[in-house]
């Protein structure tokens, strides 16, 4: 945690939580665990109420130290990503600037008479003068219109960023202003819910667990690199930095590229490019469906060579001439085809392995469930206790963890540049894969395998996994390479 955020919480007696987070012995533990587990990451899982308390503490702190309303404190905290200390400093320097930046005050001076209070510009009604209200910008509208405006916005899921109704006005309506106009309890609830979601999303230390219907919220203090957080509720592994499924050793931008690549059908274009060519005479698109390179166009009956696209007549028997000719860099159209074909082959190689491990993971999920019931049966039948069979359970869990990492090594390798580092990576990857398959084989036959043998295999597989992560997990590489040099 930075010194700044340290200050942020230090005068907060009630906040035991952070207090412990700052403890020295806790840091020591972190250092130790970093050694044994390259993915170790300090984080906590919080319930909604705990997060509410956390947010309220920041809000209270700010509103007390600056003497502003909690509602205003919320707006500024949202705008400044919950950095209370920064707000306090800047506010003392230039309060106006903070309010303008948070969009609760106009930069330009308020124009009097910009909007009259004789009739409402939105509904064209003429309510009595006390039934108008305005934000700091001075754009007056009747209270009924404000209420309707907020209702429409809340129903569309907007909360923190509801704007003034005037044209080109960027001012945001703070919570107290909104709630003073919204009376329906259902809408007020919705507004508060969206507000909370918005606050969590804008808070750099917080992230919702992306699991379906999961109510847990992660809290951590670093937001870069592949950071593993496991949900206490649904056990989903998530990357704290980007919110995607956990993806070590691949980093966040790479996994995003990989997942989009897998999701869209951009590869279709590559397929067409790799498996088809245009007839050199009539330009019709031809898919090669046989082995022979002597092609005859189905449309114009032109005979040509698939490899060099030259007229077949000039070929005669000199087939090998042609294969040498193909390497000529001047034949750009052909080399484009070749490149596309290569790219497709490369992508498929990595994608198939990635998919395969994902499928294996699902199957091993079933193995895990089977194993649990089998252990239960054994325990019920009096063949030892849970503790005796615990190692089986552990081995299956470990297998899952190893396979998970292995799956995410493939996108990493796909985007790696060729060179010794890639060779090293692929060597380690192959080693890991071999040991995982060994382990998987032994886990499936766990009851007949020797316990010592299985535990030995577990140890080897985990060692391979941690070695690979230690060498290639991005934020560790930087420190590791600098210490080696």
């Amino acid at each position, binding site marked *: 945690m930075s010194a700044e955020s340290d200050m942020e919480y230090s005068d907060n007696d009630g906040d035991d939580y952070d207090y412990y987070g700052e403890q020295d012995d806790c840091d020591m533990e972190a250092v130790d665990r970093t050694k044994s587990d390259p993915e170790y990451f300090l984080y906590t899982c919080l319930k909604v109420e705990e997060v509410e308390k956390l947010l309220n503490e920041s809000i209270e702190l700010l509103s007390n130290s600056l003497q502003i309303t909690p509602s205003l404190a919320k707006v500024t905290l949202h705008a400044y990503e919950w950095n209370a200390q920064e707000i306090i400093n800047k506010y003392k320097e230039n309060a106006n600037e903070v309010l303008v930046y948070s969009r609760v005050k106009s930069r330009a001076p308020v124009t009097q008479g910009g909007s009259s209070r004789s009739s409402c510009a939105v509904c064209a*009604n003429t309510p009595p003068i006390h039934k108008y209200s305005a934000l700091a910008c001075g*754009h007056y509208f009747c209270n009924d219109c404000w209420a309707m405006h907020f209702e429409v916005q809340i129903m569309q899921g907007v909360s923190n960023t509801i704007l003034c109704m005037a044209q080109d006005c960027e001012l945001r309506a703070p919570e107290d202003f909104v709630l003073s106009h919204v009376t329906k309890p259902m809408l007020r609830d919705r507004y508060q819910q969206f507000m909370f979601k918005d606050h969590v999303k804008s808070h750099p230390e917080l992230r919702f667990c992306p699991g379906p219907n999961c109510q847990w919220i992660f809290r951590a203090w670093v937001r870069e690199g592949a950071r593993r957080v496991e949900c206490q509720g649904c056990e989903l592994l998530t990357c704290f930095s980007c919110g995607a499924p956990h993806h070590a050793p691949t980093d966040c931008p790479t996994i995003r590229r990989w997942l989009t690549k897998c999701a869209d059908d951009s590869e279709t274009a590559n397929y067409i490019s790799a498996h088809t060519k245009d007839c050199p005479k009539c330009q019709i698109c031809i898919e090669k469906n046989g082995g022979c390179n002597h092609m005859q166009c189905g449309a114009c009956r032109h005979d040509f060579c698939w490899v060099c696209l030259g007229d077949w007549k000039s070929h005669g028997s000199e087939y090998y001439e042609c294969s040498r000719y193909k390497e000529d860099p001047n034949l750009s159209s052909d080399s484009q085809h070749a490149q596309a074909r290569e790219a497709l082959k490369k992508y498929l190689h990595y994608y198939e392995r990635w998919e395969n491990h994902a499928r294996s993971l699902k199957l091993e999920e079933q193995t895990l469930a089977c194993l649990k019931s089998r252990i239960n049966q054994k325990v019920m039948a009096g063949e030892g206790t849970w503790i005796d069979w615990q190692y089986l359970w552990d081995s299956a869990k470990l297998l899952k963890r190893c396979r998970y990492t292995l799956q995410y090594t493939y996108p990493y390798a796909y985007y790696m540049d060729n060179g010794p580092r890639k060779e090293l990576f692929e060597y380690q990857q192959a080693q890991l894969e071999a040991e995982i398959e060994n382990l998987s084989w032994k886990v499936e036959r766990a009851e007949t395998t020797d316990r010592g043998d299985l535990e030995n295999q577990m140890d080897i597989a985990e060692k391979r996994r941690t070695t690979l992560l230690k060498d290639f997990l991005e934020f560790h590489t930087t420190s590791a390479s600098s210490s080696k040099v």
Partner: protein
Amino acid sequence: MANIAAKRIKREFKEVMKSEEVAGGTIKLELVNDSWTELQGEIAGPPDTPYEGGTFLLEIKVPETYPFNPPKIRFMTKIWHPNVSSVTGAICLDILKDQWAAALTLRTVLLSIQALLSAAEPNDPQDAVVAKQYREDIQLFNLTARHWTNAYAGGPTVIWEFNQKVQVLQDMGVDEDQARVALSTFDWGLERATEHLFS
């Protein structure tokens, strides 16, 4: 229909009718039904643009939650413009989306759409094909837009070469609109347009 919406539309309708633009003939507004939920707008193509001399019809649908949500507006007259779909007439304009404010009126919206015809935003396109032509060959874009204005909006400039090409495709049994879209898309290359239509 909600009370506010109908009331607002009635007032705005009067406002447009009294405006100098209606007097000058550059915009028009008509009712389509009695419930004030649907209107038809008309804007004149601004001078010194390829749309000059054309009149463009707009379909205006007023949502229940108007004016807290924007009206839904699309071109009924076909138009060749980067921010308007050449197929559906859908308009890409910020004030019809997230920049809508309840204090805006139909008059300001119609004037904004007219302004859009004078100053396209090719970097925020609704129709990617049109926007590409606009960025890469502005002269061809201007000619194409002028031709569309002539064909659909009653614009005065006839471009014979384009008309002939459309006619060639029509003689081959292609629907006129489809022929024009294909030719415009392929920069008036008759061969490529034909290939596209018959592949």
